[in-house]
Structures are given as C-alpha cells and as structure tokens.
C-alpha cells in the first residue's frame, strides 16, 4: 500500500478550537454483543463541523462505534448502512425520499408512494443528479448494480439533511473515479461527518482527522498529515 502523507488537509476545515461545541463526547464507552466487547473503553470527542474518518482492520469495531454514534445523534443523524438497507422494491426516487419520512405526515408519505409530488421531485432530483443516477430515477432499486445501490443509500442520507452524517464504508462498491466526488458530496451535506472506510489512501486524501481502531480500541487519533506508513502497517498487521 502506498500512502502519501502530505495529501489531504486543504479540503477540510482545520479542527476547531477548544471552545467549539462537542457533538460527541465519549468517555470509556464499552459496547458488547453477547458479552463479547466490540469496542472497549473508547474515549472520543468530535466537535461540530469536523470531518472524521475511522480506519482499521475488519472486526476492529468501526461499525459498532458508528452505530453507537448514530444512536447518540438522535433525529439529527443520518447513517449510510454498510448493507445499504434500501427498499429493493421501490424506485430510486422513493428510496431517497425515505430519508425524510419523519418530516412528513403519514398521509403525505402514502400519497408520495402512489404518485410523487412535484415539490419533492424538485428537492430530490438534484441529489439524484449529483450521484449520476438521473437515468434511473424511477427504476426499482433491486434492478440496479451494487455500486448504483450504494449511491442511492448515499443519496438518502444526504437528502436527510441532518446535522450529523455517519457512513459505514459508504463508497466501498462505487467506481474509483466516482468515489472521490461522492465523498465530497457526503462531506458537504452535513456539518459533522464521520465515516468508516477501508480504502486508507482515499480516506487520507479526503479527511483531515483520522481515528484508527484495532481490537475495539483506538490506536491513534491524528491529523491525516501526521499518519505515516509505519503506523498504518502496524495498524493493519496480521494477527499474532
């Protein structure tokens, strides 16, 4: 793996000062499944406006940490699920629209299901276009390729227009030439963004703050510019 430690940085706002409002403030948090801890005594402070990427080998606890943050963020949060969690039988439009179901009455949602409102079309369409899915607006999601489905999942979270956007491997299935653009779209759509990514190079290119996890614990939490190759090979070393 080649890593350019100087890449990134400019695109992101610098980490705010000490007086900025903390969006997340974790102190010694442990989350366990069936009594096996997935993250153990994790402390993490994320301030409003920060764009953070979580890296680390599989099973390190990235998804658990994201899910925990999602639960903390309440109604301001949007999550791009690792398995997309789309509604396969509905169209791209309806799946994106589903990001704001909680903001409309049940009656309005029901009507939209039968026949989309032109107001909603106007607000949803730009997102669908930004994701290069305009040809597929009225196609069922189950007929799309994996990468296209993932873009729909991104679209739904972007449309949600919350203060906090969390994403679990949100560009893993997207073509390399599109992934960068989609990442920028994600970053621009919410004040605070936290993503888990497996493509470390892409992560370092687009994010200023890197939080590395291994075995349920934070190994390092550094500005992207300070992450070097040794740290990464140590982070991703084989077991034992």
């Amino acid at each position: 793996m080649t890593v350019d430690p100087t890449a990134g940085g400019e695109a992101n706002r610098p980490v705010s000062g000490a007086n900025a409002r903390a969006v997340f403030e974790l102190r010694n948090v442990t989350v366990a499944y069936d009594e096996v801890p997935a993250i153990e005594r994790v402390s993490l402070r994320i301030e409003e406006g920060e764009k953070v990427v979580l890296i680390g080998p599989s099973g390190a606890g990235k998804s658990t940490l994201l899910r925990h943050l999602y639960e903390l963020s309440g109604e301001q949060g949007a999550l791009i699920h690792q398995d997309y969690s789309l509604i396969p039988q509905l169209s791209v439009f309806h799946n994106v629209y589903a990001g704001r179901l909680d903001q409309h009455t049940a009656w309005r949602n029901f009507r939209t299901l039968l026949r989309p409102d032109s107001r909603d079309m106007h607000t949803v369409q730009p997102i669908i276009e930004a994701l290069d899915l305009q040809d597929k607006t009225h196609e069922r999601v189950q007929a799309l390729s994996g990468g296209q489905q993932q873009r729909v999942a991104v679209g739904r979270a972007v449309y949600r227009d919350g203060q906090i956007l969390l994403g679990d491997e949100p560009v893993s299935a997207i073509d390399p030439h599109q992934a960068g653009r989609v990442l920028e779209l994600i970053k621009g759509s919410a004040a605070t963004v936290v993503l888990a990514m497996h493509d470390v190079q892409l992560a370092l290119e687009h994010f200023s703050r890197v939080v590395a996890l291994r075995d349920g614990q934070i190994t390092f939490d550094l500005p992207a510019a300070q992450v070097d190759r040794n740290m990464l090979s140590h982070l991703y070393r084989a077991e034992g």
Partner: protein
Amino acid sequence: MLRTSLVFVAIAAVCVGLADLEIATLEPWDELRRIAVGFVTPDAGALTGASQALLNTITFAFCGLALGVTGGSLLAAVFSRSAAVRSFCACIRAVHELFWAFLFLPVVGLNPICGILAIGVPYAGVFAKVYAEILQEADRRALNGLPPRTGGLSRFFYGVLPVAYPDLRAYTSYRLECALRSSAILGFIGLPTLGFHLETAFREGLYAEAPALLYAFYLLIASLRWWVKPRLVPLYVAASFALISTEVHVSWDNIRRFLTYEILPWPMRSEGYYAGTGQIVFDAMEVGRWAWDLTLSEVVPGAWNTLILTQIALVGTGLFTLVVFPGICRHFYSRVPRALSHYGLIVLRTTPEYILAYALLQLWGPSVMPAAVAILLHNGAILGHLTGGHANTLNLRTDLPKRRIDRYLFEVLPRVYGSFLAFLFYRWEVMMRESAVLGILGIPTLGFFIDSAIAADAIDKVIFLIGVTALLNVGIDSISQLVRRRLRVRAGAVFTYD
C-alpha cells in the same frame, strides 16, 4: 421423524380397522366406465345452461375474496399483539365455507350475500394469520434504513409493505384459486354457482354434462394467469359487486330473530313455541340435558368418525405424496414425463375435493372410502407439487446412484422429508375440516349431523355442532403446531397453502 411418522401410520391402520370401507354399489365398474366415456365425450351443450352459474362462481369468488382480504388485512395489523384476535381468527377459519353458508342461510336467505360471507369470513381468518406471518418474516433491513422517528404508518408503507408485497400478492392470488373452488362447491347446497349444475348432472347420471362443466372450471383456473392482473383486480371486484347488488335483500328482522331467538337451545324456546307466545324460559337442567343428549347422540359419533377419516386421509395423503412427487422432480425424470405429471397434479388439485368425493360416492356408495380417497387425491396433489418443487431446488452431487429407487431413498427423500412433514402437518387441520364437511354427502362425520339439523330447521343444533367442529379443528391445529415444533420442521409462511 421416522418414529413420529410410524406412530401416525399405526394410528391410521387402527382407524382403517374401525372404519366402514365397504364398497356398497353392486356394479361400480359399470358406473365408472360410463363416467370415463363421459369424460372423453363431454357435452358442451351443458355450458349454455350453466353460463350464468359460471359467471356467479367468478363474482362470488371475487366479492368473497375482497371481503376476506379487507377483513384479514385489518385483523393482521393487530394479529401479533392480541391473543383475543388470534383466537378469534383461529375460530372463524376453523369453520368450513359450507358450514358458514349453513349459518348465513337462515339469516340472509339463499342469495349471493350468503355465498360471499361464507367465503369472506373464513378467508379473513386465514389471511389475518398468513399476512401477519409474511409481514413478520419480511426482511428488516429496509426498515432499519428509515429515519429513527418515522411514524408507524410511514414505516409500514415504506419499510414493510414493499418488501412483503411479492409474497402477499403470490399468496392472495393462490387464494383466488381457492375462492373459485369454494364458490363452485357452494352450489352443492343450493347457491347458483357451478356446483349446482354439477350436482344435478351427477345425480341424474348425465355423465357427459358433468365433465363439460368440470372442463370449463379447469379452463377458468388455468386462464387466471392471463386475465387476472393486480391492476385489474379492483375493476373485477367492483364489477362483481355491481353484478350481484341487484339481487340482494337483507332483512334486519330476520337477523335479529336469528341472533336472539333461533340460536337458543330448544328447551328455552319450546314452551313459548307451543303456546304461540315466543316466550323464552331458562332452565339450566333442561338445557344441560339437551346438550348432553346431543353430545351422546350426535357429537360423539360425528367427531369419532371425523377423526377416523382425518387420520386415514392424513396418512393416505402422505403416502400418495411420496409416490407422486418424484414425477415432477428433475432428479428422476426427463422433461416430458415431468410435464405430464405436473399437469396431472394440477388437475387433481384444481378439482375440489368435495366434487371428487361426490363423484366417488356415486360410484362406491356412502362409506369412508370415497371420502378418504377424495381428500388424499386433492391434498396429495398439492403436497406433491410442493415437495417436488423443494426437491427440484436441491443440488445433488453428480455421481448419483444409477437406479431411481436408490436415488429416491438415499439422496432425495432424506433431504425433503422434513419439509414434506411440515407441509403435511400444515394441512392436517385442512383435512379435518374437509372430513367434517364431507359428511353432508352422507358419511356419518360431523357434517352429516349438521346437514340433518339444517334439514330439520334446528338452528340451535347446527350452532352447537359447528362449534364442536371448530373446537376440534383448533385442537388439531394446536397438536399439529406441537408436532412440527417437536420435529423442528418448518415451511415458510407462503407455503401454508390451505
């Protein structure tokens, strides 16, 4: 699994010993020959007289199904939350359509409403259960993707309904086929559907007309896939309601009288009846004795015969299934024999068991035999289709044993036996319902006594006997669930097929 199977086989063997299996008619083969001739030389002229009945069969089915779907959907919404609703649904689906027709007959009279309610009410109970199961088993991922504070209705319309819709639609369209069968056999008790003409044709020995009517029914079922599209269904339902609405007369007085007077046990009414005052008295001793007498003279023998027939039919169905399912299975036969078996099974399952039993009774006289054969042919065809379908999904190794019997016993049967048992036990209660209802044809199961009570205009007896039948059915359903759980066999919700 093998031990349980053997226990059921042993029970059935004892039942066979106890049952009256005699073939009463002297020359059954001559009669059979005449029927066979009729099937190859059907008299299409019969159809001109029966075209209205054919249309009625369709309209009753659509209206009844619409009623069942509406009621069932509403009940399904609270099905998992309310034990009372679950029991209510179990009770209404435990009563066969023909018995429901008997119940509605004195209330609304012999008119389309009676037929529609007779289909719609039990179907609502079935839909409630199956819809609830389908919704419960739907993939939850779509739901997880919705915003956390989305309201209940929006969650349902976006997170659950679209995901479950294909299964709901498949099951509902299967039930349309069932509704057409139910609608057809309602003619046997006098409603103006196909069964009315079939009954006449069989009774009068018009063996060229009956097959023509049956063929028309097969064509109707086979053509469903061409003209029943989800978008057109509301149109068909509306048209069906429009077609029957001119004939409906419901008297509220009748309904009131039925509910407050006629269903009361005879001892409560007899004094007022003879005095001409319509007065009701309540003497617990007398009512108790009435119930006790009825239990001894009708309930016990009726239930006993019903259970004997059910157990014989259950094991018979199982054996028939195990014999026929390889016929449609790609691990045993090539394309052409498979297609032939497939169509054979479709014909058998499309023929309502009631009509099969009626025809066989004409041949063999009233005994348990024709009823058991009718039930096992109809149900075995359905289970053969399901079991064979399951066997077709198996990917077996390529170096299979050369002989079919070896492949059957060592490769396929062990793999499908669990789901086969699940399908079979799912249908146990259906077979019990059919066993009871075939009594109307003269076999001394519960239906026989219910039919006699109807003929004697004894509504109190009818209610009592139907209540017992329903309880027996709910009981069988619980035992079936217990057995399935103990054997750890399962079939998906869409395969309940009852």
